């Protein structure tokens, strides 16, 4: 009797199971719902050589205004087609009027009222900068229900798919457990064993969650397996437009082989000048500032020479002599001029000559500044950094100013023997800054060296850059790309198309309007802007060239 009561208690407790389970089931089923993201719309797609049309719609009620969205993009580039002139007629019912309004570039709201429950097709006449086209969107079905969450569509179920069967199994197991325990009990088991049993009994709770999680992962990998490991994934058109996912049709094209050289920007000949003081002295006037643009011959500074006492006396004496001679000659000339009627012509011309000579000498002496030296810029350019100020004392032959002209700079590159021919026969040369690959310029080959550096067996090659805006600075490290004259016809994609996954190069291929797939590639040589693809893509496929990073993130987060 007592065991019967005990059994009943067990039974009641075990019955709580389904209640707990029911709650768990609810929460649990909600989770995969969010993960799998079942589609909430129907689509109809039409492609031509110019356009790709994608119509998205939800449940269409007959005789009610149906709101649909039409995404128009360029077929080859996936770029949204802005401000297209779109007219839609229904092939099955010409009386249906459609209104089309652009909401975003490439996104058009389409509304119309369908009278019957049937499958319609829409004829779309489209005209934009790309040209005109006439396309058909097929299979638009009214009164079609979207798959509703929680509705069990699978008719056939295996036993483990039925929660009640599973629960029954669990219940049976519990009964068996009770039976075993009561058996043990009769054999007077010790308390340690009971504690172990208690532990065993309680542990399945966390284990259940772990198992459930494992099941989810399993489900995901199964889903991938269903895609034949094709690495395919879906990207809604809205997302593609938002992230600017653009594609390019892969064609066999000219691929110029290129060789990369490392180089350093150096000043061109005549592109840099140093201004020295010939004598030691003191700066008495500074006419330029650092970074100032100066012209050839422009005065930069004035230096007052440092002279010993004897030299100073000499200079002063000389100055006095010149001044005295000038004054004397002037007076003599003026005197003879006043009496020129009676003076001989010879005296007059002698006095005039003496006066002119004295004036010249005085002018010369003054212009030489006497003890002052004027520093002038030898070239057009920009004044480099200097630390002197007015009053600074300078030593003779000390460099004071550096004038740099960046409008033309040279690149000195080291070329090894194997590349020397390629450099010599190149048809186009360009440089890019090592730290900033957007800083590029075309360069001209100036000269290949006649001798080889004995230390590293390289040759010094000079290139000239027209550097009008001063992009490249002296001493900057650059890459020089040498493009060969011959080009190969190969499949090449822009470098922006290639990204990496698990250390392997990949590209993303557009399969359909919202379907993309990842393709592992074997990349060949790159010429700085394009990379040859040896394997992994086919001609005429559309490869993603913009938004590659976003595509990778979407792929990894799916």
């Amino acid at each position, binding site marked *: 009797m007592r065991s019967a009561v005990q059994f009943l208690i067990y039974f009641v407790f*075990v019955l709580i199971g389904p209640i707990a389970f029911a709650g*768990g089931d609810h929460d649990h089923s909600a989770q995969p719902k969010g993960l799998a993201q079942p589609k909430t719309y129907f689509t109809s797609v039409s492609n031509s050589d110019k356009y790709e049309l994608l119509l998205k719609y939800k449940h269409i009620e007959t005789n009610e205004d149906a709101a649909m969205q039409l995404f128009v993009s360029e077929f080859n580039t996936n770029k949204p087609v802005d401000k297209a002139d779109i007219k839609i007629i229904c092939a099955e019912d010409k009386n249906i009027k459609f209104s089309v309004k652009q909401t975003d570039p490439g996104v058009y709201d389409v509304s119309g009222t369908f009278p019957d429950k049937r499958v319609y097709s829409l004829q779309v006449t489209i005209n934009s900068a790309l040209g005109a086209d006439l396309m058909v969107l097929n299979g638009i079905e009214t009164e079609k229900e979207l798959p509703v969450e929680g509705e069990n569509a699978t008719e056939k179920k295996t036993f483990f798919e039925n929660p009640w069967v599973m629960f029954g199994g669990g219940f049976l197991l519990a009964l068996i457990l009770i039976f075993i*325990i009561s058996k043990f009990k009769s054999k007077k088991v010790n308390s340690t064993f009971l504690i172990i049993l208690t532990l065993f009994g309680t542990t399945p709770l966390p284990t259940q969650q772990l198992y459930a999680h494992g099941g989810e992962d399993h489900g995901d990998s199964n889903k991938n397996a269903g895609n034949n490991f094709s690495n395919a994934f879906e990207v809604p058109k809205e997302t593609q437009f938002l992230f600017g996912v653009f594609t390019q049709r892969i064609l066999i094209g000219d691929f110029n082989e290129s060789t990369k050289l490392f180089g350093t920007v150096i000043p061109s000949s005549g592109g840099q000048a140093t201004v020295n003081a010939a004598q030691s002295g003191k700066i008495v006037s500074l006419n330029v500032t650092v970074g100032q643009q100066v012209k050839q011959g422009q005065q930069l500074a004035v230096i007052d020479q440092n002279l010993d006492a004897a030299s100073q006396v000499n200079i002063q004496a000389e100055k006095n002599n010149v001044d005295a001679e000038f004054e004397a000659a002037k007076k003599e000339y003026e005197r003879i001029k006043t009496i020129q009627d009676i003076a001989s012509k010879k005296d007059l011309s002698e006095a005039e000559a003496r006066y002119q000579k004295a004036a010249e000498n005085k002018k010369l002496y003054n212009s030489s500044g006497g003890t002052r030296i004027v520093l002038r810029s030898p070239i057009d350019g920009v004044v480099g950094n200097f630390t002197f100020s007015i009053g600074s004392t300078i030593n003779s032959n000390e460099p004071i100013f550096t004038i740099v002209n960046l409008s033309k700079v040279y690149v000195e590159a080291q070329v090894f023997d194997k590349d020397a021919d390629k450099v010599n026969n190149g048809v186009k040369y360009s440089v890019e800054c090592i730290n900033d690959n957007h800083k590029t310029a075309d360069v001209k080959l100036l000269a290949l060296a006649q001798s080889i550096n004995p230390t590293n067996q390289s040759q010094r090659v000079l290139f000239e850059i027209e550097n009008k805006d001063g992009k490249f600075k002296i001493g900057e490290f650059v890459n020089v790309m040498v493009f060969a004259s011959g080009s190969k*016809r190969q499949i090449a994609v822009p470098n922006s198309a290639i990204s990496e996954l698990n250390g392997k190069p990949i590209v993303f291929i557009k399969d359909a309007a919202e379907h993309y797939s990842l393709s592992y590639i074997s990349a060949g040589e790159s010429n700085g802007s394009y990379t040859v693809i040896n394997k992994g893509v086919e001609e005429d496929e559309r490869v993603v060239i913009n938004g590659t990073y976003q595509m990778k993130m979407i792929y990894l987060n799916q």
Partner: protein
Amino acid sequence: MKTILNVAVVTAGISTALLLSSCGNEAKNEGKNNESNEHSDSTAHSGEHTYACPMHTEVIGKETDKCPKCGMKLEHNDNAGKDNGKTYVMQFSSTPAQLEAGKEGMMSFTPKIKENENEQVPLDVHHEKKIHLIIVSNDLSYFEHIHPEFNSKGNYDIKILAKDKDFTAGNGKNETKFEHGGEYIAFADYNPTGGNHQLEKINLKVDGKTKPVVNYTKENRVSNVDGYKVELVPDDGVFLSGKGIHFDGKLSENGKVIDANTLENYLGAKAHMVVIGAEDKSYLHVHPEIENGNFHLHTTFDKPGIYRGWLQFQTNGKVHTAEFTLKVEEGKADSSEKHSDEHKH
């Protein structure tokens, strides 16, 4: 002690039940998601798929089959072979109404449905274009493969340039020229959306000085074009009528054999071949496959006689047209079965 035991047992029972049922539930959810995905794709078919030739939709078969008319692999097409009850015609007009050799003009093509002339007929893109227009002179000495472009008025137009004008995008793109007067035939090859593949034969008369008529009597299976040599080699040594004929196209440049796989795609295929009968002007459009680096073609000539063939392929961005004259002998029907068995690839 008993209470502990009871609690332990009850907990174990509940947990086990939960564990098992949640596993089952997981499997169920998964099944449901897959189902809803399939459902939303709305491409679910019931029963067997139909495979048809993309060019000759009346040719229906299994997935691995090939079209006996053009040798193309059959593609999945559930609408193939079903008549949609519409008769299509390609309406032709030109500006000026009478074209003249060497003079500027325009040709317009408008697909129409018979007895419903006002309805616009959308066309499917096949081999990258909506209409493939093959223009040949009546004596088959002149050949051109061009593609009229759709305009906002609903016509497919192709511009005719004056004699001294240069093609804007190179020869064979979206413009043409008539350098000589005479009679021409235009074959418009198109595929109306929801309908079967269509071929319209349009006779053109161009005013102006005519070229002397060429009479093709001698077979010429070797063609030299732009430095390339293409040689057609039938598997049986001769071209016979009334049965599936397999032949190779061997391509070489300056005596060096070229692997046809290395060619660039032209209109989505490595090559296109058009064959037109000299007598009845019957039209065949064949797409070669590549076998052992050669073009491999497969077609059926209905009648014996002289045929002219043009094989087009692309290298370095330029399309080359190799032309041939084929002499098709009267074939015996009995050997055809054996032959086609041999060539089931």
